[in-house]
C-alpha cells in the first residue's frame, strides 16, 4: 500500500472533500498562496481560487464567526485556526455560539463546521504556541474533538469531520505534522467513524490509554517493557475524545486490571483525568491497582529544549508509572 505522512494526509483529506462536495471551503490566515504554514494544503488555492480558499485578515473571531454564519446557511466551512492556542481570541465563538446554537434553538439548526489547529509541544515555541487544550475544549457539550495519532487515522477522521453536521475540532500534534513518519493508506477513499477507539497494540498486563503524539511513545515503551521485563501493555488510542469510546477502554481494563492514562496535557483539567474518573466508577471492579495518569506538570510550556523535554511526558515517565503498579 502507498505511504503518506501526516501533512499529506491532511492535504488529501481536504482536497478530496472539496472535490466531493461543493459546499466545502477553506477560511483562515495564510491558507491561500502560502497553502498553510507548512504548505500542507498547497495547490488548493491554485485549483479553487480565492473564493473557496479564503485568506482572511488577522481576526480569529471573525474567521470563526463568519464560518458559523456560512455553516448555518448551507455551506461546510473548514476554519483553519493554525495554533490551537490562538483560539482564545475566538473562544466565545466556540463556547457560546457554534456549540450551543443547535440546542438553544431547539434543534432547528445545524452547524457543520470543521476547525483544525496545531496542538502540543515539542517545537520549542514556548507557552503561547505549545499547549494541548483538549481538556479545555472537552468542557463544551456540542463540540466533537478529534486527536489523531498517525497519518492514516488523520485522513480518515478528517474526512468524517468534514462530513459531520456538527462543529468538530481536529487537533494536529506538531510532532506529527513536522515529523516525517508515514502510514500506509489505501489508494481509494476511506473514512473512520467517530467514537471508535483503536487498540494500537494488544496486551494483557496493563492498559495504556494514549493520545496524539503519546501513542508512539507508548508503543516504544511497550516494546521496551516487553523485551526487558516480559510485561505486556495494551495501547488504546481513543482517536476522538468527544465522543469517547469508553467501552473499549473498559473492556481492556477488564482484561488487564491496570490502567495508565498517558497524555500530553497539564495534569489538572485533563482528558486523562476524565478517563480515570470514568474507569474509577464504571470499571472499579476490574481494577487491581491505582489508576495512574502520566501527564505534563501544571505549568505553562517552557521554552528551550531542556525545559520542554522535561515538561513533555515521555517513555520514561510512562515506564515509571507502570512500574509503580506492577511491582
Amino acid at each position: 500500500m502507498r505511504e503518506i505522512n501526516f501533512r499529506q494526509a491532511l492535504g488529501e483529506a481536504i482536497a478530496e472533500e472539496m472535490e466531493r462536495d461543493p459546499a466545502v471551503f477553506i477560511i483562515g490566515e495564510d491558507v491561500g498562496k502560502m497553502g498553510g504554514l507548512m504548505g500542507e494544503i498547497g495547490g488548493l488555492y491554485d485549483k479553487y481560487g480565492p473564493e473557496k480558499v479564503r485568506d482572511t485578515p488577522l481576526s480569529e473571531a471573525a474567521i470563526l464567526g463568519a464560518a458559523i454564519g456560512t455553516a448555518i446557511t448551507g455551506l461546510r466551512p473548514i476554519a483553519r485556526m493554525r495554533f490551537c492556542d490562538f483560539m482564545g481570541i475566538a473562544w466565545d465563538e466556540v463556547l457560546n455560539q457554534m456549540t450551543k446554537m443547535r440546542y438553544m434553538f431547539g434543534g432547528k439548526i445545524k452547524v457543520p463546521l470543521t476547525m483544525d489547529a496545531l496542538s502540543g509541544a515539542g517545537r520549542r515555541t514556548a507557552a503561547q504556541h505549545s499547549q494541548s487544550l483538549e481538556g479545555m475544549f472537552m468542557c463544551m457539550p456540542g463540540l466533537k474533538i478529534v486527536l489523531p495519532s498517525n497519518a492514516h487515522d488523520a485522513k480518515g477522521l478528517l474526512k468524517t469531520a468534514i462530513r459531520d453536521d456538527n462543529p468538530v475540532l481536529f487537533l494536529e500534534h506538531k510532532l506529527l505534522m513536522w515529523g516525517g513518519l508515514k502510514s500506509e493508506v489505501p489508494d481509494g477513499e476511506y473514512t473512520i467513524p467517530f467514537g471508535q477507539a483503536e487498540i494500537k497494540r494488544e496486551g494483557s498486563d496493563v492498559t495504556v490509554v494514549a493520545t496524539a503524539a503519546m501513542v508512539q511513545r507508548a508503543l516504544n515503551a511497550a516494546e521496551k517493557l516487553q523485551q526487558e521485563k516480559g510485561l505486556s501493555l495494551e495501547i488504546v488510542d481513543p482517536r476522538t475524545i468527544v465522543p469517547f469510546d469508553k467501552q473499549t477502554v473498559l473492556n481492556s481494563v477488564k482484561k488487564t486490571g491496570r490502567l495508565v492514562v498517558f497524555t500530553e496535557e497539564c495534569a489538572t483539567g485533563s482528558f486523562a483525568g476524565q478517563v480515570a474518573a470514568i474507569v474509577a466508577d464504571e470499571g472499579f471492579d476490574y481494577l487491581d491497582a491505582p489508576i495512574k495518569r502520566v501527564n505534563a506538570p501544571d505549568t505553562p510550556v517552557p521554552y528551550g529544549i531542556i525545559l520542554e523535554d522535561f515538561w513533555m511526558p515521555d517513555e520514561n515517565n510512562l515506564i515509571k508509572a507502570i512500574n509503580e503498579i506492577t511491582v
Partner: protein
Amino acid sequence: MTVAKEKLLDLYRTIVRIRRFEERVSEEFAAGNIPGSVHVYIGEEAVATGAIAHLRKDDYIMSTHRGHGHLIAKGGKMNLMMAELFAKKTGYCLGKGGSMHIADLDIGMLGAAGIVGSGIPIATGAGLSARMRGTDQVTICFFGDGASNIGRFHEGINLASVWKLPVIFVCENNLWAVSVPTSTSLAIQDVADRGVAYGIPGVVVDGQDVMAVYEAVGEAVTRARKGAGPTLIEAKTYRYRGHFEGDAGTYRPQEEIEKWLARDPLNIFQEQLIKMKMLTEKQAEEIDKEALEEVAKAVQFAKESPFPKPEETLDNVYA
C-alpha cells in the same frame, strides 16, 4: 421617497404589533409567567420596522438580546414567540432558548444573542454564504451602541468590508449599555463615524422615525444587493423601560427620558400617516385592536401549551 400605501400600512401594523407584544411581555413577566430575563424593545420599534421592511423572506437578519421586535418585523409568529418565553414545548426553541435565544431559519432570522456583539461576525458569514452560493440575499445585522465597543464589531465589519459582502450593520444607539452611557463609552458622537475605519459608508438616522430608517436602510440594501458592499447605519433611539424587565433604570436622568418619550416612534409614525392621509384614526384603532387580539391569542396559546418533559433536556445537542 414615495412608498405605496399598502406598504405604509404594513409598516404601521408592524410597529403597532411590536409595541403591543412587548407591552404584554412586560406584563406577563411582572406576573411571573416568564422566567429568566427579558429585554423589551419599547421605544425602539421604528428601527426594526423601517429596516426590515426592505427584506425578502429569504434575506437574513441577525438580532440581539433585545430581539422580539426584529423577529416580529421579519415575520416571526407571535404565538411561537410567546410560547418560547413561557418556556413551553410549543415555543420556537421547544422551550429551550427563551427570550435571548430565538431563531427562525425558515424566515431568515439567524438568532437573538445573549452575548453582546456575537452576531456581528456571524452576520458577516451569512453575507459570505449568500455570495458563495450565488444568491442576492442580503443580511441586516442589528446591535447596540454597547456592542459597537466590542472587538467583534471591528473584526466582523472589517471582514465584511474587505470582502464587500452584502451586509447592513444597523447600530441601535439607545444611548445606554445598561447603566453606562455612550458619553463615557465612546469618545465620538456618532457610531456611524466608525465606518471610516473600514472604508464603508456610515449613516446616522433618526431611529424614532420609521420613514427615515426606511429610507436610509433602503439605500444600503440596494448597495448590498448589487454587490457594492456593507453599510454602517446608526439609528439614534431610546429604550423606554429599564435595561431588563425589573431594572428600574434609575441611572438615567429624568429629563432625558422625558425628552425621548416625547418622540415616541409609534406616535410619530401615526401622525405622519394621518397627515399624509394614508391612515385614518379609525383604521389606527382597528389595527391596534387586531394587534391586541393577536397578542392575546399568543398568550392564550402559550398558556395552554404543555411544558416540555424533563428528559427533553437531553435532546438536540448534536445533529
